[in-house]
Structures are given as structure tokens and as C-alpha cells.
């Protein structure tokens, strides 16, 4: 209350002060504009009679003689904007018929009718500042919690490491000790791995059989060019890859041979010959089969189905065809499973779920032992949780972003569903069917030098015709909730996503300090 009273008092004073200083001059520079004394340009480039100040002719190179007119091309005009923030505008905006200063002082001779909106703006700004401050406050508390949990998770793991270390013979060489830890750790790991691999293979066999049937049916339909329900030798001849002697001449007799010595086969008969030709048969679509990768072992202590390898590891991007880069039978299904609502198979990991899902302990070891870790800071030994050899994830100075790991966040627009999986990828899927497009994979933090964690970059998405690969910049702002706020495509194939998270909330400055600033 006290402060707004002062404001009113000051408003009264401004009118009085206006007489004392030329138009457009801020109070801070009033002493340079003394009435009835020659005026020296603020850059010292010349001295003129005081009546030449604001006489609508530019005498000073720096424009300082015309703070209140548009005469100088490089001048600036000071708006007091009582009730709001004071500010400067280029003097070319004086009397141009457009209201720029909320106190209307820039349009004193243009005929423009401007409303004084400073109070309104001031009120709104105060409100929004207050709101921001509240959000920041709560967000900051949440952030502390996130940090705490991330640290605790880390500590647990670190103590496990220590335990393991202690259970082995002490050694003066830490690396040697860890190597031994590895050997010990590898054994149960290998058992688990074998066990799991077997289960996986059984599962795969079922899948393969199903796929084989599908493939066979497809092959039949493709081979049966005239769609008479029979595959004939002639129809088969078109597929020269099936030529038994591969001499470049696939004769009708040879084709009949393949068909078991008959002219035509129906679907039942085809089933019997399928096994003999399926290895050679080439349809237009090469079916990609997903198999275990070198990263397989990383998930030994997580029940099946396992974490999917990231697409980059498993397929070479052969073209910009979405379906080839992300074979239907693999990524999208697994991907859906990552939806937080769908994670019924990971309930036991509740503790971890709250703070994201840190990689299993074995990963820490394996990444340490099997991957050359470049530039590992001593303290960061265990903060560098790598899924890939080259990438070590940076969860922020206090691990506050760790909770985002393994999570995905959706935004539905009129046309698309956008999905941000923070340390993984960004994608876009049409709302009403259609294939998914990769808008970029996790690249790096890309904020300004002062605040590198304010922005992150996802690149190497699906390629654009004649253009770059799709990429996405995610801007992070402080919010109580973790939400994708908006997505836009300012430039072709370059997306911009706004994302709120408590993890970037800063301790809010006290509102009172702000108040003083608003007034002058």
C-alpha cells in the first residue's frame, strides 16, 4: 500500500519535473540539459545554444540534442511510463501516429489518440510476476525434492559399488579392484543373460513362426499375379531369385520343379513348398528382424520385455522412409510401453519410477568397464549414465533432470500427437493414423553460456526432401508440472518445443526488490 501511494505522489511530481527537463530526457541525464546554458552534445562532438535542444533539427552526431523529436536518426526518447517500467524508444517512433509509450508521451503532436495504459500494464506485470514467482517458488521446492531423490538414488548405487568393492580384496590400485569387481559382477550377469536370452529366443521363435506365416501368405498373393488363387510356374518365373541352378535362366520346367512338379499350386500345396523357397524368395519389402544386440545384457535385472535398444543402434538409416527406419514390429510397440500410464510391468520399480528409471547397476559397471569413458571428472564417475558409447547423459549440475530419464510427454494438436522423451527423442504422429516421424534424437544441452540447461537440442531426425534432417529445439521454462506446452515449426523441418519442468526453476528473488525496480 505504501508503495502505490508513493507512486501517486510521484506522478504529481512528474508534471512539474517535465518543465524542468526537455522532453524525452530521463531524470538520470537531467543535469546535462540545463536551461539557458549552452548544451554540449553528450558525445562531446559540439556545443549549441540551449534553444537548439529539441528544436526539431539534428545538430549532434549522437542525436543527444533532440531527445524529444524525431529529428535525429539515431536518437532515443525516454518514456517515464509512471505506473509501469520506464524505457527508451528510438526517436523515429516519436509522433509517428503509433502509440509506443504506455504514458502516451511519444505522440504529443501526431493527432494519434493514445490511452495511458501504464497502470494497467503495471498491474498486469505485477500479477504475472507474482504468478511467476509463485510458480518459481513451488517449482524450486519440487526441484529440491528431485535433486534429493536423484542424489539418494545415486548414493544407493554408489554405496552398492562401495560394498562390492569392500567385499573384494582391498587393492591400492582402484582400477585393478574394479576390474575384479567386474569379473565378479559378470558371472551372475552372464547367467541372467543366458536365462533371459533363452526366454527371449523362445518368444522370438513364436513371433518368427507367425511372421513366417504372414510372409508366406504375402508371398502367395504376390506370386499369384493373375489372382486366380493358384500360383503357376509361369508366375513363379518372374522371380528369378528362385531359379534352382541360378544360371540366369529360370525355365518353366525349373519352375515346375520348384512347385513340386506340377503346373500350379493352391495355398495348401504352397505351404509344403514354402520352406524350400522362402530363403530365396524376394518380395519388394525386406522384412527386418529384430535380434539381440550388444546392449542386451544391460537389462538383466529388469523383467522382460527388455528395454528397446535405441533405433540408432539397431538400424542404419537407409532412407528417409519412416517405416524402414523404425520397423513396425519393433520400435513403436516398445515405445508405447514407455508411456507412463502403461508401465504395469514395471510396478516393482516404483521407487525408481518417481525419479525416472535410472539404469541398472550392472550398467554402471559395464559402461565403466567396457566403454572407454572420455573425460570423466572424478566426481562425475557415476553421474555419467551412458546408454551409448559416445553419449554420456548430463542430468544437470545437481541431477535435477534425472527424473526425466525414460519418461515421455505428449502434446496433442489439431493434427498431430507430439511426443518428447527427454533423453531419447522427439516424434510426431498424425492424430488420425499414419506413420510416425522422428523429429530428432537427443543431442545435447544447447542453452546460452550462462544457462546451458535452458534449452536442449534433438537432431538427426527423419530427413526432409532437399532439406536438412528434422531437428527440434526444446526450450525449458520453470513450471510446477512437467508438460509440453507447445510445438511449432518456425522453419521447415526445424521444430521448436516449449516444455515446462520444475527442474529449471530458480530460487525466486523477493518480490519487494522487484517493486523498487518498477518505479524508477
Amino acid at each position, binding site marked *: 500500500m505504501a508503495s502505490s501511494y508513493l507512486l501517486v505522489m510521484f506522478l504529481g511530481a512528474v508534471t512539474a519535473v517535465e518543465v524542468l527537463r526537455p522532453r524525452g530526457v530521463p531524470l538520470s541525464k537531467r543535469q546535462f540539459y540545463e536551461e539557458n546554458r549552452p548544451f554540449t552534445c553528450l558525445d562531446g562532438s559540439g556545443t549549441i545554444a540551449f534553444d537548439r535542444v529539441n*528544436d526539431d533539427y539534428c545538430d549532434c552526431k549522437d542525436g543527444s540534442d533532440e531527445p524529444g523529436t*524525431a*529529428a535525429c*536518426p539515431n536518437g532515443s526518447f525516454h518514456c517515464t511510463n509512471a505506473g509501469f517500467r520506464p524505457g527508451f524508444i528510438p526517436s523515429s517512433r516519436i509522433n509517428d501516429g503509433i502509440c509506443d509509450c504506455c504514458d502516451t508521451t511519444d505522440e504529443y503532436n501526431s493527432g494519434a489518440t493514445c490511452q495511458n495504459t501504464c497502470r494497467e500494464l503495471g498491474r498486469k506485470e505485477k500479477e504475472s510476476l507474482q504468478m511467476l514467482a509463485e510458480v518459481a517458488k513451488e517449482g524450486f521446492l519440487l526441484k529440491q525434492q528431485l535433486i534429493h531423490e536423484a542424489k539418494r538414488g545415486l548414493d544407493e548405487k554408489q554405496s552398492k559399488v562401495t560394498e562390492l568393492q569392500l567385499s573384494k580384496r582391498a587393492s591400492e590400485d582402484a582400477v585393478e579392484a574394479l576390474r575384479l569387481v567386474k569379473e565378479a559382477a559378470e558371472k551372475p550377469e552372464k547367467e541372467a543373460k543366458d536365462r533371459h536370452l533363452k526366454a527371449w529366443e523362445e518368444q522370438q521363435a513364436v513371433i518368427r513362426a507367425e511372421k513366417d506365416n504372414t510372409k508366406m501368405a504375402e508371398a502367395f498373393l504376390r506370386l499369384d499375379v493373375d489372382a486366380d488363387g493358384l500360383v503357376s510356374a509361369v508366375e513363379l518365373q518372374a522371380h528369378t531369385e528362385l531359379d534352382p541352378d541360378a544360371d540366369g535362366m529360370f525355365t518353366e520346367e525349373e519352375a515346375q520343379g520348384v512347385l513340386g512338379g506340377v503346373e500350379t499350386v493352391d495355398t495348401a500345396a504352397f505351404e509344403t513348398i514354402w520352406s524350400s523357397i522362402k530363403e530365396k524368395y524376394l518380395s519388394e519389402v525386406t522384412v527386418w528382424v529384430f535380434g539381440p544386440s550388444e546392449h542386451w545384457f544391460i537389462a538383466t535385472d529388469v523383467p522382460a520385455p527388455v528395454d528397446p535398444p535405441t533405433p540408432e543402434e539397431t538400424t542404419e538409416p537407409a532412407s528417409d522412409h519412416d517405416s524402414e527406419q523404425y520397423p513396425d514390429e519393433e520400435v513403436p510397440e516398445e515405445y508405447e510401453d514407455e508411456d507412463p500410464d502403461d508401465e504395469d510391468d514395471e510396478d516393482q520399480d516404483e521407487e525408481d519410477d518417481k525419479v525416472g528409471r535410472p539404469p541398472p547397476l550392472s550398467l554402471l559397471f559395464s559402461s565403466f568397464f567396457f566403454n572407454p569413458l572420455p573425460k570423466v571428472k572424478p566426481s562425475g564417475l557415476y553421474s555419467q549414465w551412458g546408454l551409448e558409447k559416445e553419449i554420456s547423459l548430463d542430468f544437470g549440475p545437481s541431477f535435477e533432470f534425472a527424473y526425466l530419464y525414460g519418461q515421455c510427454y505428449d502434446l496433442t494438436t489439431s*493434427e498431430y500427437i507430439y511426443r518428447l522423451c527427454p533423453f531419447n527423442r522427439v516424434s510426431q504422429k498424425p492424430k488420425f493414423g*499414419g506413420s510416425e516421424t522422428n523429429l530428432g534424437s537427443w543431442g545435447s544441452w544447447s542453452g546460452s553460456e550462462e544457462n546451458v540447461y535452458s534449452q536442449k537440442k534433438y537432431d538427426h531426425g527423419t530427413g526432409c526432401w532437399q*532439406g536438412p534432417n528434422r531437428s527440434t529445439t526444446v526450450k525449458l521454462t520453470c513450471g510446477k508440472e512437467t508438460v509440453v506446452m507447445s510445438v511449432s515449426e518456425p522453419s*521447415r523441418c526445424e521444430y521448436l518445443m516449449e516444455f515446462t519442468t520444475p527442474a529449471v526453476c530458480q530460487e525466486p528473488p523477493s518480490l519487494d526488490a522487484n517493486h523498487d525496480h518498477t518505479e524508477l
Partner: protein
Amino acid sequence: GTGSVSCKCDCSPTRMAPVVMLWLALCLSGTLAVDRGNFKTCDQSAFCKRQRALQPGQSPYRALLDTMELTHTKLTLQLINDNNKVRLLLELYRLQGNMTRVKINELKPLKPRYEVPDVLVQQPLTEPLSLLSQDENGVVLSLGGEAQRVILSARPFRLDIMEGHELLMSLNSRGLLAFEHLRTLFSLFVILPSQPKADDKVEEEKDEEGMWEETFKSHTDTKPNGPSAVSLDFSLPGVEHVYGIPEHAETLKLKTTDGGDPYRLYNLDVFQYELFNPMALYGAVPVMLAHNAQRTTGIFWLNAAETWVDISSNTAGKTVFGKMLDYVQGSNETPQTDVRWISESGIIDVFIMLGPTPYDVFSQYASLTGTQAFPPLAGLAYHQCRWNYNDQEDVQAVDAGFDQHDIPYDFIWLDIEHTDGKRYFTWDPHKFATPKDMLQGLLEKKRKMVAIVDPHIKIDSEYKIHTEIRSQGFYIKNKDGGDYEGWCWPGNAGYPDFTKPEMRAWWASMFAYDQYEGSMENLYTWNDMNEPSVFNGPEVTMHKDAVHGPWEHRDVHNLYGFYVQAATAEGLIQRSGGVERPFVLTRAFFAGSQRYGAVWTGDNAAEWDHLKISIPMCLSLSLVGISLCGADVGGFFKTPNSELLVRWYQTGAYQPFFRAHAHLDTPRREPWLFGPDNTALIREAVRQRYALLPYWYQLFYHAHRTGHPVMRPLWVEYPQDAATFAMDDQFLLGRDLLVHPVTEEGARGVTAYLPGKGEVWFDVHTFQKHNGAQDLYIPVTMSSIPVFQRGGSIIPRKLRVRRSSACMEHDPYTLFVALSQRAEGELYLDDGHTFNFDTKGEFIHRKLSFSNNILSSSNLAPAAHLSTMSWIERILILGASKPSKVTLKTAGGQDSQLEFEFDASMSVLTIRKPGMNVGEDWSVVLK
């Protein structure tokens, strides 16, 4: 532009309309440059091949002198083709303003042949011809004054135009006149209706390939009317330089076409066009200028069908040494250029403009086809375009970006993505949900918007524009009588028949505020794809056997874009009750298009050569009446580096239509995205443009009144200086500014040619004075834009550059007086946007002159009136000596002393704040 055939599409995966597949098919074949195979060579165009095969010196045409009739307006006479006995009717007119018109049609065509309507502003006024002499070999006619005669020779038919003893131009001197008469498919052996004399033998005409049907890349042209080509040759003795016949990506001086293809005039949407070749582009103006040190002449071939122009020269290929040798050895064969025009249909209707000065030719051509539309002042300011500004928020952010970076702009543009599914006259309901709010936001900053309206109409029974056009029968028909359909941005589309006056009137009415929902007075229009572009048509355009009422598309093709722009401009005029001047940009054009607005050079690329060629391309257009020309700043395709972008802004700031544009697939390139240094450089270039707007506006007023070009090749002002004849890396704006933009990558300097022996030129930035008639090396940095003001001129500027031109309306002027003892200039102003200058005489037009140490302003238009708040804030006199006293005398009679400063190092006198209103009479006396 919006586009080129192949490269505009919405590539979002969900919108894979069939058109995208087609687009892919088209695009994938030519991602780097034009796919020449998509466009015909002369050999692949049956009529061109047929006509070009004719050998000179074998003309079968003979004038039947006994059929000659001479009235006070024209001479008529029959020609006969001695091979087939078909008779032609020749009409010869003497037109006011030193022009001769020659028309040749069939005497009795089977059906009428197309004569181009609506291009001439009026029936040209004639002057009497008189018969000087006549014998059995020919007649001699007087062309009125200036001792001009036409000699008409009978066998073979030939016309020679003489002035005194000088031969100016000959027609059919090489005997390449050809006129394919209309015939029926089975009439070849029928005895012709003429009555052959006993000794005449009617040769049987052979049915050549391609006369009745022609196929190009799976497209068949059915040619129900058979062959109908016309052709004529012109000889230009003493001429080594010919110009014009845009649009080609070519040097200013046209090249000879021997051994290559002729220059082609056929409006086409060429994807990623190549430079320096005679291929057709988006527009066609069949006007050629010929120039030598003594005379400038012009040929206007009024035909809207596909046209090819061959140029040959007897000096082409000769070196300077070879020419000298000829001279020394006395084998002084006069240099000569021969030109041959070939068109697929229509008649021969040619206007011979006899100059003798370049300005006479401009006036002569303007008297036929009209002058440049006087654009609203804002149209001469800076335009910010991109395919596409994504939504209203994007528009608002870009608008704010200009303010934040203190860069002025007047227009922001919306390309095709702003529409609801490429349905023109509509808005995307999500991205542009409240267009009036957006326009109001711009209006409050005194800024404007252009939205694209293309002439292909989505076939969609829910789309009002389509259903109305269909129900009124306004679509172009296919050869079988149904509505013609082709693929373009919206997918399947119809093409309104703009050749129909009632269709144009209806189209114009669609721009009314209550018809075009979401439009406001600050929304203007861009007509793209109006060649017309048909993605799945032959050469990406319409089938020639499509039908426009009684005519084939073949007859009217090059006129289509002209009509689209004309109807659109009319719509913008009508919506304001005839008060406001329109602004319409077109990609396709024809002779006369200057009357309707602006033209740009289509889909160029972010390459240095494309920056360079923007100069000759716009100069060529300027020479044939189209002054409001520009190239996409930055280049449409590909991505400019910051150096190229800055240089392009610097060049574009001194070209008439100044618009930045970019392809959908390129990264954003608003001026502030290249770091503060480049932002500052671009800001400075744009500010120079805004400061100079009074001069630009005055030049366009002048172009509108007289038809004189705004952007001029040097030879136009220095017609006797042969050094300027082929110059196209620099140009003049009006008479008084010479611009030599930096168009070389990494340039450390440029060599500008300052013309005019005895003249002086002042660097507009440093005021350094240079002598004329010299090559001047100018060291350059990234901020350099070499521009010179001619000594003897006065140029008004407004140095208080604000965020849009409208914001500067009431601002004071600074006069730049560049002395060469004397100086003269003008100052023109009006309200900047209405026709009141014309309908109500509301303007100010002053003559400024400096002589005998007196600078004065006198009224060039005493009948006009306008009150203005603008005043003169400063006068700079370049090349002055120091006065002791400067006195202002105004009409009121009161004298007052003015303060001044004198810079002795550059001899610049600056007069401080004289303060008189620009509408007043005044004089400033230096003592």
C-alpha cells in the same frame, strides 16, 4: 515465388495428397537445376522447326499492286504466295508519334484468325500516308514528316523504311515471311478458290509431320485447326545491339541465336531456371529495341501465341581487331542485325517504333500499351515475404522482430499455406483463424499485407469460388468440351477463363470486402502460377488445344497471366469504390502488364550469378515498359550465406520492387538472424531505401505519366557512348543516380563506369566528386553500396527513417543538390495511396533548380493542389563554394538569413533548417 512447379508442396506426412506424388516424380528428376528435357527446343516444336527450316532468299510472296487501296488512314494491298496461290491482305498504317504498323492476315481465312485484344490502350491514332511514286516494281509512300518513306517492292514482297538516304529497317528482306493458311485436313488436293493463270502452277502442299498433331513427352496436341504459324524477318542496318523480348535469364544485350535455339516467348513455370540461355520463362513481352549511336528503334510483335525470335548479326563473332581490319581494308560492310519472329498462330501485327531517341521509343510504346501503374508509395518500400509465415503468431513475431531490430518494412506476405487447403480467398481455420485481427494489428503499425491468390481453383463442390465458376460456365474447356482440369497446388483444379470479360468482372467482384472474408483495406494481392502452371500439363502448362470460347489456348496462352493480374487489380480498385490504388504482383506477364502492377523474376536461387542477373533481367523489363520489377532478395531456392544475403539486400534496396522471399524448405532468414553485424548492414541498406523513397515515388510518377523507365541501362541516357551499350552490372535510377552494386563474392573493390564526358558524379555516401567518362575503381567493404549522384541534379530524401513509409508521411525533406554549375530536380508528393492525384488533382509537383547561386522551387502543376505538413529541414549543396550569407526568400516576401556549415574538404554546404513548406514557392540565395 511461390513456386515452381515442382517444389511447392506440403510435405507433412499426413497430407500426402496425390499431388505430392506427382510433385515427387517431377522434383526428383531435377533437384539441382532446370530439367531442360521438360521444355521444348525449337526442333521439338513442330512449327518452329518447320519455319526455321525455310531458307532465306526464296520468298514466294508477291505484292499485287493493282489491289492497292490508299485511304487517309491506311494502305491495303494483297500479297500472293506464288507457290500455293493463297492471298494475304497487307494493311499498312502510319501512326501518330513516328510509328508504322504492318498487319498481315489471310485475305479469306477459313475461319477468323486470332487478333490480340485488350493489350492496346486504344485504337492507335493514324496519320495520313501519301503516295510519292509508283511503278510496276513497287510504290513509294511518304510517312509524313522527317523525310520518311516506305518503299514497297512487289517481287518479292518487301518493305524498306527510309529516312532521307538512310535505311532504317527492312521487312522480308531475307524473304522469310511465312503465313500458314488455315486449311481443312482433306483439302490438300482440292483446287484452291483463287483463279490461277495459265502459267501458274499450284504446288501441292505436303502434309508435314506435326501439322495436325504433335506429341511431346506423352502429351498430344490435337491441333484441330492444323498449321497456322506466321513469321517475318526484319533487317536492322547499322545495328549491333538489340535488347528486350523478356523474359529470359540473359544478359541485357541479346545474343545471336545462330547455332542455338531462338529466344523463346512462351509463359512457363520453369523449375530452377538456368542462367544465360534463351529458354522461355514466366512472362513474355514481344518487344525488341535496337540501338546504335545514331538511333533507337523498336519492334512490337503483337501476338500472344508461342513465339520464337532468331537474331543474327554479320558482325557477331568478329573481334574488335577484325572490325578494324575491315575498316582499314575498306571492306566496310555495314554492321547489320537480322531478326526473325515466328509465332504459332494468330496474325502478323507489328508496330515499328522509329524513335529516334530511346525516350521516343518509350513514349511510342507507352502510347500503344499504356504506362506503368502508379503504385501506392508503400509498394516501393520494403516487402518481407516467405513461403510461408506459418500462422498469425508467426506474423506477429516477425512484425515485432522488425521493430525490435529497428528495421523498417511495409508489407508482410503470405504464401499459399495461409489458405484453407489451397482454396484461394479463404484462410486456414487453425493457423489464420482471425485474419482481421492480424490485419488490424498491422494496420495499427501502418503496415500492410499481401496474400496470394492464384488462378487455379480447387475442384471441390463445397468451395464457393469453384461452384460459382462452374455454374456460370467460366472455366476453360478441354478439347472435348468439358471443363479443363489440371493438377496444381490444391490437387485437381479448374482454370477460370480470364479471356472472358464477364469472368474478369466476376473475379474482380470477389475482392469486395463482403466477398473475400477476412480481407481489409490493408490486404493486397499476389497472383502466382498464372502462366498458367499445370503440373501435369505439357511443359507444365495448359494443353494448347484447350478452348477459350471461340479460340484455342494456343492463341491466347501468353495473355493469360496478363488478364489474371488485370482482373485482380480491377477487384482491388472496385472494393474501395475506385478510390484506392491497387497493388498486385504477378509472375506471368505480357505487353501491357505494366498497367496492372508489379512483376518479379520468379523462382531464382541463392547464388551469386542469380544476384548478378537480377540487373539485366529487370533492365530488360524496364525497356519494354515494366518498371516495377524485382528479384527475390536472398534467392528463392537454396540458402544464401550471410555475405550473399547482405549483398542482395544492398542491391535490392536500389531495384524497384524490393522483396525478400524464401522457399519453404530453407532455414529462416529474417534480417536479424545472421548476427548483429549483418543485421546492422541489412538495416542500413533498408534505411537507404526508405530515405530515398521520395525520389523513387517521383520516378514512378514520371513513369506513370510518360512511360519512361525507372531503372535504366546506361545507354538510354548516354546513347552515343558505345562503352555503355552492353553494360549490365550497373544501372541508373532515373537520370540522376548511378548504382553499381557489389555482386561478387569476397569483393574488395568494384570498377564502376561513370559516364558523360564533362560530367561529374558525387559519391552519395562520402560526397567525393569524380569526373565522368572514366572507369573508377572503388574499394569496398561489406557496408559499401556504390551509388553516385549526377552533378547537375537535385534529389529529395527523407532522412527520418521510420518503421514504415506511412509513418514518414508528414516528415520533412532534405534536398541533395549536386552541382555541375547548375542543377535541376523535382519533388512530387500526394497522399501516397489514392487516385486523387489523378481524379482530383491532389498533388504537389515542384521543379527545383539551382543556377547563379540561387536555389529555387517553382510549381510544375499550378492547377494541382494539396496541403502538406512536410517542410524542408536541410539543404546539402555538393560541390559548392563557401558563401558569406544565405538568404531565404518566400512568397510572403519576407527574407530571412539561414545558418549554414561548410565542409571545405568535400566542398559541401549544409544549410540548416530553412523550414519552408514543400508546397510553397521559395528561393535560397547564396552570396
